Structures are given as C-alpha cells and as structure tokens.
C-alpha cells in the first residue's frame, strides 16, 4: 500500500509559513541585539522541521537549501560563530528565499534556482570564514543550559515553581473559585498540592462564604512565570501570592535573559513562540488546538443565530400567557436565553484571532523600509493580543501597511533633522491595539514631523476641494488628506507611486464598519486612530420604523436623533428641504419617499430626524419612530439575491420577520442621485 502524501502538503505549507513567521520574529529580535540562546534555538528548530518536512515530501531544493542554512545555524547555536548583523541579514533573506521556494512549490511553479544558489553561496562563504576565536561567555553558557532543558530526559531535578497561595477572605464572594484556579494550574505541569486548613473555624462559627484555606503548591515543568501568573490573574488583587523558582534554574548567565525576555515582551513573545513550538514539538502542554475551516465556523454561527431568533420568538409567544405554568415557562425561557447568549459569544470567539497576525509583519517592514530610506526607526507594539474577527483582520492588513509606510516615509524625519530639532536620533512608530466600548481601537503613531496644516490647506485650495470663504477647523483640515484625489505625496515629500491613497484607506475602514480619525501636532508627530467593530457578523443597530417596515440603522453612522421644530426647517426654492443643526444646514432624506413606502407621517414635525453621517457628509434621515437598539446578526442579501444600493444586508427580528439594514453611505449616494425608476418624489429630489 502506498501512502498518498499529497494530502499532507497543505498542512506542511501552512505550518511552514507559520514557522517562518516565528523565525523572522526571532531574527528581528536578534538583529536588535538581543542575543539569546532560546532565540537561536527557535530559528534552528524552524529550519530543522522545514528541512525534515521538505525531505519527506521530496521537495529537494527546499530541503537542500535548508540543510545549508541549518548547518550555519548549528554553528551559531553551538557558539562556534558569533551573531553578526550581516549574518542576521543573510538569514533574513534566507527565510524569504525559503518562503518563496515553498510558495513556488505550493503553486507548482518553478523555483528561482539562480537566486537560491547565490544565497547558498553566501551562506557557504560565511561558514568558510574562520570561526571567531573567542566566543563570548554568555553565548557558550546559554546554549549549554538550554540544551539540558531541551533534552527532556535530563536527570537534573525538574524545574518549576513553588507557589504560596493565600486567598483573602473575600475571594469567594467575588466569584473566584480556588478549585478552578488549582485545576487550571494543574494543566501547566505536574502539581503537588498541600492545603493548610488551620484557619478554618469550628463548624458552628463557619461562614461558608469566607475563604479560610491556604495552599502550598508546587508545579513542575518548564513554565513561564507569566503563565503561572495568568492563572491567578483574576484573584491577584484578593490574595497573597508568592512565586518561587525551584529545581534546576538555568545557570547564572542565562538567567537574566530568561527573566527579562518574557517580561517586557510579554505582548509579543507568547504569540510567536508557541507557534514554533506547536509545529516542532508535539509534546506541547497547551498544544490542544485543531484547524477548522472558516466555513464550518460560519455554519455554526448561522445555526446559533437561528437559535437566538427562535428563542426570542418563543419568548414573545410566552409573554401573553397566564397562569402558574406560564410563569415557569417564562423563567425557563429566560434561562434558555442566557445560555443562548453564552453560546453565541463562545462561537463568535472562535472566529477571533489576535491582532498580532497583522502586526507581525511590521517589524520587518519597518526595518527594511527604514534601512532603505536611511532612517533610524524603532517599532513599539502594544496590545497585540487584542482579538478581532478573522474577516476584519484580513481586511485591516493593507490599510495598516499603508499607514505605517506613510509614517516611515513622511512622518519620521532623517536622523540629522531629528537631532537638529532636539529629538532622539531614533524615530519611534507605535502600534497600539485595545478594546474600548465594544470596539477595537488600533492606533498608528509616530513621533515625526507631524502634518503640515498650512500645506494641506494650500493644496486643498489649489485642488478646489475647499474654498477660501469658510474658516476650517483643525480637524476638518486634517481630514482633507482623506479626500479622493488628494495626493499626500506632493505635500509632504516627493516619494510617491504608492497607488493607494488615504481615501482608499478610509474607504476600506468604512467598509468594515469602522471609523478613522487623525491627530497631529506639528513637530511632535501624528496619530491615526482606527475604530473597528469586533466582528462583521454582528452589528449594533438602531431599529427605526417607517410605516409597516422596520429598518436597522448602524449605530456607528448615527450622530444624534432629534425632534424637528418648524423654525429649523427651510424650504429651498427647488423643492428640497434643509434642516438647521447648529451651524450646519443638512439636507433631509425622507426614507419613505426614497424607498417608496407608505409612512405614518409625512409632516416633519410628527416624525423623528436621525442625523446620520458617512464619508464626512451629514444628512437628516426622516423616519416615523425609533424602536429599540439591539445587536443584529447580519445576513447578506447577495446570497440569494443581489446587492441593492442603500442596503447593507438584512437581519431577522425577534418575531422572525426580515428587517433591512441601511447602508448610510449608499442611502446618501442614492439620495443625491435619484435614479432610473424615478421613485424620488419632489420633496426628496
């Protein structure tokens, strides 16, 4: 029987790409001067496992090249050769070459053999150099220590943590369960537990809600301090926790690197390192993950969405019932609802990935582009464990790349300019992601020169984007860079040919239901803040009724909702109406005439005006009545029908009916260009 290996190819490619990512991350750390045995080990493991896999599948060119690379890495690992910037550079390019070869193999295309051979020659040249005579002490000491760790069967006593866990009396009242903490701790490694029950009073005096127990724990195994602390995260403020390392502590020189590396880098390290571990060593303690296709998850999400709707139909049916059983039914349904919400949330979480998947490409980008432009740039990444829906993540990548490139290109000044301005020679670009009120905020900031407002304004005047008559607020001026046809290249520098403008960035963000803001102080730098929804599958909506129809207006588009007074409405000669909102005059969009439906009210004074905004344009949307605000599951109209301008999709209401979700930019477009079927009535024209 012959085994068909091709079925494993995809997995091999996928794992190799992931491994290459972690190798690159490690190399970048090396290039930042952080020479650490564990880093070299990570890189070595990647090369080794790719070589093994490639040889198994008879991808001989990949295996051959990787073998040379591995030899060099082995020398580095053994401390026979010192890490030098030029070696790191070659290694980085080797990583790229391996990726290119794998991609070519995956697509069954020819491999760029010439380029590979050249790189191979370079690697061989480095290896032919006489090894550095005196490798530094740290480099030799560290690998030997970590080797003893890598060899799992080493006789040295297993290292681990001695933990003294003294819960405060309030711990239980605040919903923390020590048992749960202990169970989770046990998943990290072999655990010895001894409980100290001396503090427990006699049964008559016992208050079951007061925690009097204390524990002495020993967890054995190679465990990160952060991992242990994470277990106690929720209880931390309510207990005394003492962590003490036991067993064979890696020898002295390596100790600081262990202690320092994970701590300040806690945000980045756990993301890249586990990926490498998982693909190289199957005996990973927390490697219990499986690959599931996104369609399966979406199917699951759909079914759960259905359950939620069915459940709310049931609740509505049960509401008018009377009698004892009805009460019981209702409470059972309320319980069902809680379970449903929990289920829905867990399924949503399955789709979520840490934003590091996008952030990971930036260290390389910043390094390469900075080098090319002769700028010294440091990249700071925070909050890269913040989770986002996979679809959002996929679509946010390109706009972010554009923004970071802009910061490198136009934001950060040349070193001499910076020094002259009294700044550090190194420019800093920060990527910062965090949660805020049901949204994820991503900020790209630099400490460069900032935007030149005068130049932007001059350019906008020249292009006819604004007129001289109006005094523009600072925000409005900055926002001009998002205007289509506004070229930043002419304004800030001569580097151009990017192909994508800021208007595209903004459009991409808006398509995701997000929002982009810009802050800038001249001479001190700029910050671009992107607000993104957690997921594309669910939308925060305001239900609005027009006649018999109910529409969902995305909350993100709503500025405010107001009751109209006569004196604030002006009739325009051509038949349109405008509404005065403070200093602005807003056109009024009558949803009933735009959508050709029978409303309850046609007089503006009877209904409500929702002020909505899209692409910097504001209009007043006239509806009969506002209903509840709720999260709705977005269903595509395109699946079985086609896209309709002005509609973002549809959703199911609690009673099982379909409600259409408005797409505010589309509504405004349609309002401004009343089209073919001549539906728009005179008031709306």
């Amino acid at each position, binding site marked *: 029987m012959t085994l068909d290996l091709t079925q494993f190819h995809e997995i091999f490619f996928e794992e190799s790409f992931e491994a290459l990512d972690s190798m690159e991350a490690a190399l970048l750390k090396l290039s930042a001067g952080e020479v650490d045995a564990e880093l070299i080990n990570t890189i070595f493991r990647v090369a080794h496992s790719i070589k093994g896999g490639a040889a198994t599948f008879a991808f001989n060119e990949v295996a051959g090249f990787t073998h040379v690379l591995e030899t060099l890495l082995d020398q580095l690992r053994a401390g026979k050769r010192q890490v030098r910037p030029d070696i790191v550079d070659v290694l980085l390019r080797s990583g790229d070459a391996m990726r290119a070869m794998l991609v070519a193999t995956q697509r069954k295309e020819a491999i760029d053999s010439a380029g590979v051979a050249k790189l191979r020659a370079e690697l061989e040249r480095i290896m032919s150099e006489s090894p550095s005579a005196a490798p530094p002490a740290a480099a030799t000491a560290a690998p030997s220590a970590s080797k003893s760790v890598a060899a799992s069967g080493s006789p040295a006593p297993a290292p681990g943590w001695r933990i003294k866990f003294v819960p405060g009396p309030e711990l239980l009242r605040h919903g923390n369960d020590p048992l749960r903490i202990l169970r989770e701790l046990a998943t990290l490694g072999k655990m010895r537990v001894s409980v100290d029950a001396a503090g427990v009073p006699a049964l008559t005096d016992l208050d079951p809600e007061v925690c009097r127990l204390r524990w002495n724990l020993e967890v054995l195994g190679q465990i990160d301090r952060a991992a242990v602390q994470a277990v106690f995260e929720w209880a931390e403020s309510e207990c005394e926790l003492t962590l003490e390392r036991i067993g064979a502590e890696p020898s002295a020189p390596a100790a600081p690197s262990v202690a320092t590396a994970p701590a300040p880098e806690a945000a980045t390290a756990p993301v890249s390192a586990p990926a490498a571990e998982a693909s190289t060593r199957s005996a990973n303690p927390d490697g219990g993950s499986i690959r599931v296709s996104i369609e399966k998850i979406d199917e699951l999400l759909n079914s759960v969405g259905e359950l939620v709707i069915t459940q709310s139909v049931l609740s509505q049916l049960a509401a008018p019932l009377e009698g004892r059983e009805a009460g019981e039914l209702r409470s059972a349904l309320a319980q069902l609802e809680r379970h449903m919400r929990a289920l829905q949330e867990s399924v949503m979480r399955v789709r979520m990935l840490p934003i590091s998947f996008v952030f990971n490409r930036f260290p390389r980008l910043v390094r390469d582009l900075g080098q090319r432009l002769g700028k010294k740039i440091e990249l700071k990444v925070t909050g890269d464990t913040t989770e986002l829906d996979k679809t959002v993540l996929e679509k946010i990548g390109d706009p972010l790349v554009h923004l970071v490139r802009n910061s490198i290109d136009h934001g950060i000044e040349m070193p001499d300019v910076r020094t002259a301005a009294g700044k550090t020679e190194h420019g800093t670009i920060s990527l910062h992601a965090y949660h805020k009120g049901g949204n994820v905020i991503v900020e790209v900031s630099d400490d460069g020169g900032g935007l030149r407002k005068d130049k932007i304004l001059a350019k906008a005047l020249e292009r006819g984007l604004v007129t001289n008559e109006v005094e523009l607020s600072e925000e409005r001026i900055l926002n001009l860079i998002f205007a289509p046809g506004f070229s930043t290249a002419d304004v800030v520098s001569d580097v151009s040919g990017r192909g994508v403008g800021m208007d595209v960035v903004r459009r991409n963000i808006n398509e995701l239901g997000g929002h982009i803001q810009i802050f800038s102080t001249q001479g001190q730098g700029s910050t671009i803040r992107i607000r993104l929804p957690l997921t594309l599958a669910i939308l925060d909506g305001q239900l609005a009724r027009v006649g018999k129809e109910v529409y969902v207006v995305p909350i993100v588009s709503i500025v405010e909702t107001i009751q109209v007074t006569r004196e604030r409405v002006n009739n325009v000669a051509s038949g349109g109406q405008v509404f005065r909102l403070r200093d602005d005059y807003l056109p009024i969009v009558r949803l009933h005439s735009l959508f050709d439906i029978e409303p309850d009210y046609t007089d503006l004074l009877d209904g409500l005006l929702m002020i909505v905004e899209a692409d910097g344009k504001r209009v007043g949307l006239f509806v009969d009545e506002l209903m509840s605000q709720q999260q709705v599951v977005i269903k595509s109209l395109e699946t079985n*029908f086609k896209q309709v301008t002005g509609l973002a999709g549809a959703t199911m209401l609690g009673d099982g009916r*379909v409600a259409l979700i408005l797409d505010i930019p589309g509504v405004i477009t349609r309002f401004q260009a009343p089209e073919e079927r001549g539906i728009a009535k005179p008031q709306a024209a």
Partner: protein
Amino acid sequence: MSPSSVNTGNSSGALEAADTQQFLTFKLAGEEYGVGILTVQEIRGWSRVTKVPHTPDWLLGVINLRGVVVPIIDLRVKFKFANAEYNDTTVVIILTVATRVVGVVVDGVSDVITLAAAQIKPAPSLGTGADTRHIIGFGTLDERMRILMDVEKLMAGADMGLVDKAIH
C-alpha cells in the same frame, strides 16, 4: 443536487425509467405550469414579506426561511397576468436555482407528474410578442397540457439577473 442536470433531461427520479422526468405542476392564472421536481426545495404557505426598495414590482420582497434571506418573486406579476391576489390558497414554492434559493408565488400547487421524453413537445415560436426562452416545452398528460419551465433560464433572464450568466 444539480438542478441543471434535471432540466437537460439526462437524469430523473431514481425509480423512473431513464427517459422520464418528474415535474411539480402549479396553477397560475388558470393555466397549469410545471417545474423540474429536483429544483423544488419545499412548498410554503403565504407569509408576509419585507419589501426591498428599488427592485422591480415582481420582486415582492424577502422572507426569513429558517435564517436565510430568500427573495420572493410573483410570477403572476412577472408574466403580466391580472389579479395577483394573496389569500389562503396562495402558495410559495421554494426553488433551488444553481446555488441560489428563491421563492415563487403561485395560485396553487396541483400535482407531481411523470412525463416521458416523448410526451414533451418543444415550444413553438409564439411570434415576437412572447418570450419563450424559459419554456422547455409543453407536456401533455391525460389530455391536459402543462407549460414546462426551465427555472434556471427564467431566473437568469437579463431583467431578473438572479443567476450568474456564467453557469450557462
């Protein structure tokens, strides 16, 4: 399930002879029509639809079919028949066309009939006034004639645009 194979006539109900096809027949303005049985997903009673703005009048709107948004088409409006009424006997046939699901409103469902290839007569040209591209032919059984429709061609018509042209 591949609806297209049904309509081209080379496969049919498993228990039938190789050259027969099954059709679901329904009434529209007094005439009987038939569609290939394998395109039919289910039959539902009339329920309220949500209107979709800026769509032709024969598209009544969309309904929630177990969590899927399904457009509902009134063939009586589409074929320009008078008196499109909605009452207790009004029925919606849910059809699967290529990858899409659409509902079609009819006056009532009649029967499932089995026709041999010989019983299906090709549609004659009805002159410039009538578009017969979506008609497979006329099927005669027990002296009664049914108009057999190719649902995919019907839905792919330029004005409908519900099925991508690529499949043809």
